[in-house]
């Protein structure tokens, strides 16, 4: 893969990870986490790990985000940190 | 032939990118949630369509017509199926987001006129 892309995505990954952990709204955090998963899936696809990317796309960006949101919905959205 | 096809595909992809740019600028510049969703929802749809069509056209050029394999054509069809998919889901997503924003109580920016939805809700006494 093109290493410049690689680096850009990696930087974005760090940014999304930090955002999803810093945002106070849990729903937003879950969404940003979904973005993170999608980015990392992109990265893996670029690295040639298509199966892993596919799995991460379905699981990380799909199921994980959905069940996180389901839990947030059933509990509460705001958090102290 | 293949040069022409390549040019077409490049044009399509470039157009898609331009529209992407437009929607991104729109998202940045527009004043409120709803107007931004206009930019995001529409620009997204068309530009993705154009880019994918560009791919499809490019791939069409790659088919060896002498040594034809169905599988190659199927790639084009798959790309078109993705287009259909985007046409189906993209407006739905835009709508869902706007609706959710509305339900969440984000006030639309209004210069004049009343809000039709407010009126309706007022009538129903919700």
């Amino acid at each position, binding site marked *: 893969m093109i290493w410049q892309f690689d680096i850009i995505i990696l930087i974005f990954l760090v940014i999304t990870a930090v955002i999803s952990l810093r945002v106070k709204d849990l729903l937003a955090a879950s969404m940003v986490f979904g973005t993170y998963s999608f980015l990392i899936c992109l990265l893996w696809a670029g690295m040639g790990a298509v*199966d892993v990317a596919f799995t991460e796309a379905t699981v990380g960006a799909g199921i994980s985000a959905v069940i996180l949101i*389901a*839990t947030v*919905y059933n509990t509460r959205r705001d958090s102290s940190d | 032939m293949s040069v022409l096809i390549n040019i077409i595909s490049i044009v399509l992809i470039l157009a898609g990118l331009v529209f992407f740019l437009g929607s991104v600028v729109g998202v940045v510049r527009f004043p409120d949630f709803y107007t931004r969703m206009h930019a995001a929802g529409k620009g997204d749809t068309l530009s993705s369509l154009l880019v994918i069509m560009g791919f499809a056209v490019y791939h069409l050029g790659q088919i060896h017509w002498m040594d034809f394999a169905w599988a190659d054509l199927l790639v084009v069809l798959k790309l078109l199926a993705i287009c259909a998919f985007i046409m*189906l889901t993209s407006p739905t997503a835009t709508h869902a987001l706007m609706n959710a924003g509305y339900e969440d109580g984000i006030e639309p920016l209004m210069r004049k006129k009343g809000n039709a939805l407010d009126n309706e809700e007022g009538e129903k006494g919700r």
Partner: protein
Amino acid sequence: MKWVGLIAVLFTGGLLLSAMDDFPNWGDAHSPANASPVSQYFIEKTIEDSGVPNMVTAVLADYRSYDTMFETVVVLIAGIAIMAILRVGNQIPRGARPAPVSAPASVNDDHQDIIIGTTCRLLIPVLQLFAFYVIAHGHHSPGGGFQGGVVLGTSFILAAIAKGLDPALERLPETRYVKIAFVGVVIYSAFGVACLLLGENFLDYGVLSVLLPTIDAAEARSHSMLGVEVGVAFTVSAIMFAIYANLASKGELEGGL
């Protein structure tokens, strides 16, 4: 706490980075991991052994199928665990509930959002077909039992999101998805046990060719891989839906998001 955490994390990070000098370069084809006889073997001999072009599938479902079996078991455990922790209310697992007297499983309920409802309605069959495609073509393209299973499960989740949990549960009631989940693992391990009974080691699919005289050992491997992937897909799809259904309804399996 924060400071302790920070120090621990920095320490760990330093530890992890301290070995960086010793790492092979990124993308080095001759690093120990990439040039090891094991991965060379996978790349060179997969076709020979089973005729499956997708090496990941071959390694997943054949060479390291023992791992994958337990991976499936992990998924099963996750579902069972969530039911065990969260499930409340009716008898567990709930039996087929009596059909509602009023409208049957309707997808046209007007109180639901028409746009989203219709989109999902159109998407679900396509999604399911795509899931089956992914399962069936794991040998040739990315995908396989796990990804396909997740997509299949997602289609039910989509139904539950768009239409509410109850209609989705009428399509896939609790008794059924629990059963499917278990049956998936049964299918997987049955392949292994069949090999065992035919006198070879567990999951040594090559020996299954004696069951179908027209195929040779490589094909037997290929087909058995598909078989176990189907088992994986069973479990995964059922459990993904189970996880969502329980988490979305606080274990009551009613209402939902």
